[in-house]
């Protein structure tokens, strides 16, 4: 029986879709059978980030409406075996699906896959309710910004109200130099406010933008620091104990040289 993990944040643009793509790919690289589920109906992105947009024939709404079977709608990844995407519909809206239908869909997928990673839309309305309906666990994404942390706090409350216990926190786009200068909230500050367990910290990384635009998750790039962070998070999801990457000293001279190399070779 597989596990359904929802990636959510409340606020938009903090990296839910990027995280979903990277964690899914990361878990697949660790030998698991993974399904990515895009619930952002009407504003789908996960297919673009995965570079699978041109393969879509059927989508999530077709599955719940019985137009096709789940297997027909699942898109096999072009690079990795064992990684599948169930895309959202683009020409419909969030009300095309109900939480009960999502629950059933998640239960059906559970039989086939080890992990089902659900990409949740921004907001706390119907789309959010659909996304969390079938979830066993939740990963809450935030960036070190007051507004994102505020929204994350709201989301944690809603998750707990919906019986999804112990959501995990992933802090995205951390810039250690700014934290050091006191211009950005530190990891400790955020954990202090949100009071949930941390599953990972992902540094701000230009490679993410490049890889997202290319449709290739950064987790596969050895040189990318964010990719490394996502690989570690994937291991932690599987229960492995991995220490946080030491981000201090990054953005220094050495990192700049590294970045230059990474940029050239990319």
């Amino acid at each position: 029986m597989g596990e359904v993990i929802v990636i959510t944040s409340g606020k938009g643009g903090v990296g839910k879709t990027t995280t979903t793509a990277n964690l899914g790919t990361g878990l697949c690289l660790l030998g698991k059978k993974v399904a990515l589920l895009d619930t952002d109906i009407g504003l789908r992105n996960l297919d673009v980030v995965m570079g699978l947009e041109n393969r879509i024939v059927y989508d999530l709404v077709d599955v719940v409406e019985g137009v096709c079977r789940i297997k027909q709608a699942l898109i096999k990844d072009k690079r990795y075996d064992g990684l599948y995407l169930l895309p959202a519909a683009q020409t419909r809206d969030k009300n095309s699906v109900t939480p009960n239908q999502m629950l059933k869909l998640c239960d059906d997928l559970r039989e086939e896959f080890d992990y089902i990673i659900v990409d949740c839309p921004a907001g706390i309305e119907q789309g959010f309710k659909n996304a969390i309906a079938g979830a066993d666990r939740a990963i809450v994404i935030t960036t070190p910004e007051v507004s994102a942390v505020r929204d994350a706090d709201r989301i944690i409350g809603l998750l707990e109200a919906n019986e999804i216990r112990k959501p995990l926190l992933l802090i995205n786009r951390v810039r250690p130099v700014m934290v050091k200068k006191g211009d950005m909230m530190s990891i400790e500050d955020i954990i202090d406010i949100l009071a949930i367990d941390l599953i990972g910290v992902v540094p701000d990384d230009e490679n993410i933008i490049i890889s997202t635009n290319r449709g290739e998750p950064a987790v596969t790039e050895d040189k990318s620091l964010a990719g490394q962070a996502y690989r570690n998070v994937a291991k932690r999801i599987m229960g492995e104990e991995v220490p946080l990457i030491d981000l201090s000293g990054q953005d220094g001279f050495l990192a700049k040289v590294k970045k230059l190399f990474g940029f050239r070779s990319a």
Partner: protein
Amino acid sequence: MKDETNKITFKGTAEGLVIIIPEQMDTDLVIKQIGNKVKAAEKFFRGAKLKVLYRGKELTEQEEEKLKDVMVKNSGVIIESINYELYEPPIVEEKHTQASGIPFRHIFFKGLDEGPCKFVRGTIRSGTRVLYEGNVVIIGDANPGSEIVASGNVIVMGALRGMVHAGADGNRQAIVVALKLSPTQLRIGDIITRCPDIPEEIQSRPEMATVKDGVIYVEPL
């Protein structure tokens, strides 16, 4: 639904009479209902020799006897045998009946050369679907994430970057023309194709997509 679960169906086949009994139905009710049904068609049954098969609920031998009695008594039918038949619903071979909004048909849209046509002015943006029973002309661009579905031809006087389905009722004779033809996905009739993953050099000349021998070809106009 209640009617469905409590309804006995009679079917005449080459082998005889088939009675379909809902599985959760009460046996007394079954016998009573069959009795009534047979009585209603007394004239039809009288004197006829029948082999009876029944599906669904399995009956004991006594119950089978009872059933036989009630049928004979109510209509004067002669029952040669009565047997249970294990019946599994046939597995329906699934076909792509519909890929993008217009169902596949046996008779295609006839107006490929001359017929109804829809004109759309302006950019077709992501999340918009143009669905039409006929030919479609877009005067503008079609962006990624948009869908154009037509039972006839599709002409885009601009850049076609979204999904397009011409001959959406299954007609492979339909064509797609665009000033810049680079769709996320191109479908004609029941054939689906997509651009190669490695982007080719960007050309900006008008192109036409047609189907030849079951393959979609794209050629400059």
